[in-house]
């Protein structure tokens, strides 16, 4: 099977975006500019969704575009999908308002 493709956008990023549907167990070629590395998908990652390229511990920032896009709401393993089930936004969190 040829490697599936994913794209990292900045050096600091700990997630990559899949450029095609990725099956669980597939080898994923993660490109960053001219560099690339191979990782193994631990689960299915649909086209356009994110795959962790390093382990991300709970409460650690998730980085894409070289900037924080939120924090891990649980431990995330390299190769897992990263989405609303395991990251939380840090901005506009009216639900976290302190009760007066």
């Amino acid at each position, binding site marked *: 099977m040829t490697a599936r*493709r994913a*794209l990292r*956008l900045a050096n600091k990023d700990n997630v990559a*975006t899949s*450029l095609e549907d990725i099956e669980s167990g597939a080898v994923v070629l993660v490109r960053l500019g001219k560099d690339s590395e191979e990782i193994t998908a631990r689960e299915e990652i*649909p*086209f*356009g*969704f*994110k795959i962790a390229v390093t382990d991300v511990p709970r409460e650690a920032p*998730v980085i*894409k*575009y070289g*900037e*924080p*896009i*939120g924090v891990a709401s649980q431990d995330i393993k390299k190769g897992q999908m*990263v*989405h*609303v089930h395991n*990251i*939380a*936004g*840090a*901005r*506009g*969190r*009216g*639900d*976290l*308002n302190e009760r007066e």
Partner: protein
Amino acid sequence: MKESEMKFLGYPRPDGSAGIRNYVLVLPGGFFAAKICDTVAGTRTIVTADNGSGRTSADRETIGRTLIGLGSNPNVASVIVHSQSPGAGYPELKPSHLAEEIARSGKWVEFIDNVQEGGTFRALEKGIQTARKMVLEASRIRRQPFDLSRLALGVKCGHSDTTSGIAGNPVIGNLFDRLVEAGGTAFFGETTEIIGAEHILARRGINQEVAEKILQVAADTEKMAKLTGEDIRTINPVPSNIAGGISTLEEKSLGAIHKAGSSPIQGVLSYGERPPGKGLYFVDNWMNSASIFAGYAAAGAQLVIFQLGGGGLSGEDLLYTSSAVVSPLMWTTANPRTLAMAPTSLDFYSGRVIEGKETIEEAGEKLLQTVLEIASGTLTRVETLRYINPTQLYLREPCF
């Protein structure tokens, strides 16, 4: 593209601007305007429930500014202003005031006082005959070549998915860089969708004041969002964003700002506010299609762009048909699946960047070519349909 090729065929206007369309506009909306438009070819009006009645002065000012801006848009050859509107008694919306302000553009403006004409139906005869004269006169104007510097574009990114941030928006950004480089004007906005990326935009303000204003509008919007007591992720990113792979507002914002290219930001404008000069402007507006495009048109944009992700949409092939009242709406996408879903609704495809077959630069040049064609008269897909969605003006204050 050579500078000599970066021209479009537009309609010359008395103030030196160039229309890419040639409409007669009837303002404000309502029965009177609608019946004139039903009868007379080449006319336009705004369809909205925002008539100003029971609104604060700030909101009435926004409505007035939008109507005046639409009338002053280069795509409008001439304007009929009438008095039949529930908000007409307020100073900001007084029909004679709207007519006078629009007339500053030097174009032909007629004011019809419906009461003085003996009521709506008697006034309608005058309105129809005036509009007929106006479209006839407008049809005598010939398109002539104009430099790209005469063009103003507005952009919204919507139903964004992860192709938007990687390719769709960067290609729009490349177009904006080319436009600004050529001396044109570009508008982007959607204040909620810079939250998490505002620090990056602020660095691009032409001075400290602009930088602070960018941070301020983002902070104000986040503060209002928090007052709802809700996690903004349950509101925006919208469900189709999440279904398309976007996980948080910050991720959406960091992708969204790519549509602004890399030019310096000249200033922060309010909804419908005309810019004091050329270049790239941030508009403090709301992302909703029903609202944002009319605001850009009122600011002077002759063409507006909807950059669509669409990965989270469920197979709808007819995309939103809102025009910006007087400015055509064109659709772009970088998502190959979106193109397959809605091929007859899309005007431009930048997904060859995703497929690895084209660079952002190459796609940007092709997009500029498409924009110049549309500016010269080629219809957008939206323009082939008669239906125009109602406009919801961006009114920020409580109503009474």
